[in-house]
């Protein structure tokens, strides 16, 4: 493999990794607050991808408007999912296993629903960008990938600001470290959890839009969430920063591996190395450990 090809794959990998990072953070937000693996995030991604497609194809053929609409739509979708399937069991004080069952079910439900309704077709987004590639000497940079990378970075930076500086972000972190005490300090836990789902949903909406734009829309697009969860694990469950770094690493590693050993062996190598990683360093990159409290 020559040097240029490596550099090329590196660029693609970083762009793809940006989307993985979005998913990892969307997943990590909910994990931090409620401590369960939220597979329904994949459902949000799928629905948003379809929503973005129908909006941009039939309503406004404008990139910026549909993109923002999809992001907001994803946010409200997240809140709706929380209200419908997680809040009832949370208020009953159900064990974590039931949250997990509901989230897996929701993911399956969405996937099957779309498979039945629109599964026999692939839906490509309209071409917003006329010339899809920039040629720089020997390099070819896909504009869509460049767009993906910059949007991911922007969204993550904004979210980072919200979590670090704003009041709702501080409340979110407080609830993450302990779900009971903040309510004694006058924080409305229900609202904070809804907001967590809103932020995660916005990330899901953005992810769905970007994935739909970069590839095509099909019911299984939500299964990509697994890459996000893998990134979250490598980064250390619950560490958002670690998730971002791990998402980028995963994207780059995948691109390079696919170029080097082919697409059929790549998943084997990726998952085998994660199992090894868990053996050696289960707390992930960030080194945060989660202790199950009594």
């Amino acid at each position, binding site marked *: 493999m020559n040097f240029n090809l490596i550099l090329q794959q590196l660029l693609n990998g970083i762009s793809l990794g940006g989307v993985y990072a979005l998913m990892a953070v969307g997943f990590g937000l909910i*994990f931090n607050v409620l401590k*369960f*693996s939220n597979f329904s995030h994949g459902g949000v991604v799928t629905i948003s991808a379809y929503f973005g497609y129908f909006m941009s194809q039939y309503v406004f053929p404008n990139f910026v408007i549909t993109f923002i609409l999809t992001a907001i739509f994803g946010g409200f979708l997240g809140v709706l999912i929380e209200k*419908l*399937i997680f809040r*009832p*069991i949370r208020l*009953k004080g*159900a*064990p*974590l*296993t*039931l949250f*997990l*069952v*509901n989230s*897996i*079910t*929701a*993911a*399956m*439900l969405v*996937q*099957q*629903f779309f498979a*039945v309704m629109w599964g026999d077709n692939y839906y490509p987004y309209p071409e917003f960008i006329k010339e899809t590639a920039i040629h720089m000497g020997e390099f070819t940079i896909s504009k869509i990938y460049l767009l993906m990378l910059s949007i991911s970075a922007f969204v993550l930076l904004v979210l980072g600001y919200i979590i670090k500086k704003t009041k709702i972000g501080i409340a979110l972190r407080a609830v993450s470290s302990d779900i009971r005490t903040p309510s004694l300090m006058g924080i409305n836990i229900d609202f904070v959890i809804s907001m967590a789902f809103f932020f995660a949903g916005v990330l899901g909406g953005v992810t769905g839009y970007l994935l739909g734009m970069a590839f095509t829309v099909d019911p299984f697009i939500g*299964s990509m969430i*697994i890459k996000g*969860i*893998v990134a979250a*694990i490598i980064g250390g*469950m619950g560490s958002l920063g670690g998730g971002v770094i791990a998402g980028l690493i995963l994207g780059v590693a995948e691109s390079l591996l696919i170029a080097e050993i082919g697409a*059929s*062996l790549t*998943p*084997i190598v*990726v*998952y*085998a190395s*994660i*199992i*090894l990683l*868990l*053996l050696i360093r*289960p707390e992930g990159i960030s080194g945060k450990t*989660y202790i*199950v409290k*009594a």
Partner: protein
Amino acid sequence: MFYLKVLEITSLYTILVLGVYLMTGLTGLFSLGQGGFVSIGAYTAAIAFMKFNLPFPVALIMAVVMGAVLGFLIGIPTLRLRRDYFLLITFGLGEMVRAALLYLSQLTGGALGMAGMPRMVGLPLILISIIFITFILYSLKRSRFGRNCVAVRDDEMAASMMGINVYAQKMKVFIISSAITAYGGALYAFNILFIEPNLFNWLESGRLIIITFVGGLNSIAGVIVASAIYYSFGEFFRFIDVWRDVLLGVVVILVVIFRPGGLFQGLELLPKKLIEKVKRERL
């Protein structure tokens, strides 16, 4: 004949659900990779029988051993950690198995799958297996082993305080479950007579978990009934067959919200209990 076929297929899947019941229902271990174990069992048996000309019983045993060994290997790094890690690694395992089966096309036929197995498994063997597995599970559930499982499921920390070796307990459960699942896969291969790498993806694994929850965490009878209804449903209601999974999903969410113990709660359909109940009602 048609009903016989439906019964056969339903029973095959019920074996898989029973395998999952022990780990998910009783012990609270979620695996999205049980599909991988089904494939491993099916392919091991088929390859042993077809390529190495081993007798059928030996092929079956090999499938079970393969499942157990794989379960052990996957269990070592993951069972010590939070359940989420286990969930994810088993998911990865399912994908790895799929990718590996596609890659090793010399041995497995790749995406074309394997066909041409003789029909060694009929309804009698499947039903006997179900009865046998149910008996084992029921005995386990009622023994100290099963109570340990429930303790681990409900509160790991409290369980370890009471002197249960949580890791060892989970490991045993995972190995037994994997073995049962692989056995189910082997039966599948020699009954359906066609296997391919994509037959058992993560959705199938997820379905097995979900059915367990509909039936009831503490009820083997409930799980069997739920799986029988689910897997025979499509044969009788062809017109809404495509919506089967959507329907199942809605049912599951409703059950989890309104009846968290599952449809059967803790009820077991035992002949003795039933007779007692009838007697009591007469008095």
